[in-house]
């Protein structure tokens, strides 16, 4: 796992400062985030099980503790 993902996100205040450093305009940033999210959802489509309805219906467990 890359080091930067371990970086501590502590207080919300610090996170606000972090985003302030980004130089792109808010609208561009919004576009970029939306693009990333779209890519992620497309990626998820590729790994999702087929026949959602049957799949979910067939997931039945015996009760445990």
């Amino acid at each position, binding site marked *: 796992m890359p080091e930067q*993902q*371990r970086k501590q996100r502590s207080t919300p205040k610090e996170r606000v400062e972090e985003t302030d450093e980004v130089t792109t305009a808010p609208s561009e940033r919004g576009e970029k985030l939306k693009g990333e999210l*779209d890519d992620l959802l497309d990626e998820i489509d590729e790994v999702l099980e087929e026949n959602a309805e049957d799949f*979910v219906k067939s997931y039945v*467990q015996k*009760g*445990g503790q």
Partner: protein
Amino acid sequence: MAVPKVCGIETEYGVVLRGAADANPVLASSMLINGYVEHHKVGWDFEDESPGRDARGSLREGAQPPEIETHLVNTVLTNGARYYVDHAHPEYSTPECADALELVVADKAGERVLARSMLAARRLLEPGQEVVVYKNNSDGKGNSYGTHENYLVDRAVPFANLVRHLLPWFVTRQVFTGGGKVGSENGAAPVDFQLSQRADFFEEEVGLETTLKRPIVNTRDEPHADPQLYRRLHVIAGDANLCEVATFLKVGTTAIVLAMIEDDFFEAAAGAGGRKDYSIVGPVPAMRTVSHDTTCKATVELSDGARMSAVEVQWEYLRLAQKYADETGLALCGGELVGGDVLRRWEAVLTALETDPSTLDGQLDWVTKLALLDAYAQRDGLSWGDPKVALLDLQYHDVRPDRSLYERLVRAGKVERLTTEEEVVAATTEAPVSTRAWFRGGCLARWPEAVVAANWDSIILDVGGDPLKRIPMMEPLRGTKAHVEHLFDTVATPAELVARLSS
């Protein structure tokens, strides 16, 4: 008086055998373990098991240890964990850990063990068949399976004190421990999405049961340690977490709260003008009230008539914990490094829950899952009742790295990790250094054939010729790396080890 918060997590994974006509879950679970452990499987020593013993002081007649009823395949791993079949589920019990961060690593290592087991099980299956496991707590059809935490607690603490302060604790901590779930079950009011996988399944306040009429506070009294000195608090009111921050907070905050109860800190604070306790009127329905409200604003009634939201009750516990840390220190709860981080993150999470819970995407499971489902449903114009939304919920918990939606989010850099993958992989074979798990794991790593059986508080060795030797391990903080590394390095055989220990 507070004792060190040795802790562990047991997870019953959901399991399916795909591509088979007879999808027997016990068989599927067995295949995982048999596939993972090719050679020597270590037996479990049931000598000290007594799940029918009640912390309130009775032994239920005819109560059979559930492990004995259902134990089919069992093994103990070199990392000190127990891996076995329980109630038609594969169960992974982490080794005993000394603090919340160590336990996050051990819990994540369990996911990796299950992932490898799924691959290994393929060798035992017909082509086209696959065993798949899910780290969740419900099948969405009214069947639940548990993720239990365990904490070492001072035997001298009256159990009633634990109950008094833990009922409101378990009701309100759901705001950060919840695994997130689409819909409701078990007769609960309909809801699109709720915080917890488990909340709908609690029907009693206090009790011994774990599989039906589940109580918020479980009274099973099996210390797995010196019973004169210790209890093991067996917590069944928690969700399986994938987010490391959620596991860290769940364990870290509960450890501090337990230390405060042991040190009578609530009572001391009440003397100084604080509330005596935070007892909630009707904690069972309150579990659902809190879980069913994703805004985290719903209030519950306290026994003194006040109405507070779960987050407000959490603030009160946090303020007390901060005071406790100032006055007593956190040496028993992971020290400044871990305990201090728990307090800082706890505060940050409560602040965020109060202002905008969605900012905790990537830290808490329920928020992360909700954000993902929302985005997906919005893109495709799906309603909450759409099977695809239910599938996303289920597949968030898929333990196969290439199918897990949680894992997709990690890879996309959207989830905060507290561990490195290197330490997680190491923890699949190496035991935590600072508990007796190190001794158990060390014996298994060095002399697998000599370990006839083990359990949490003893290990049975075959040293050749003589009767089997049982080594008691009644003190969870003895047998650490610091204690036994030198011993291990200076003995060549299990017989020598036993001779040295008894001399």
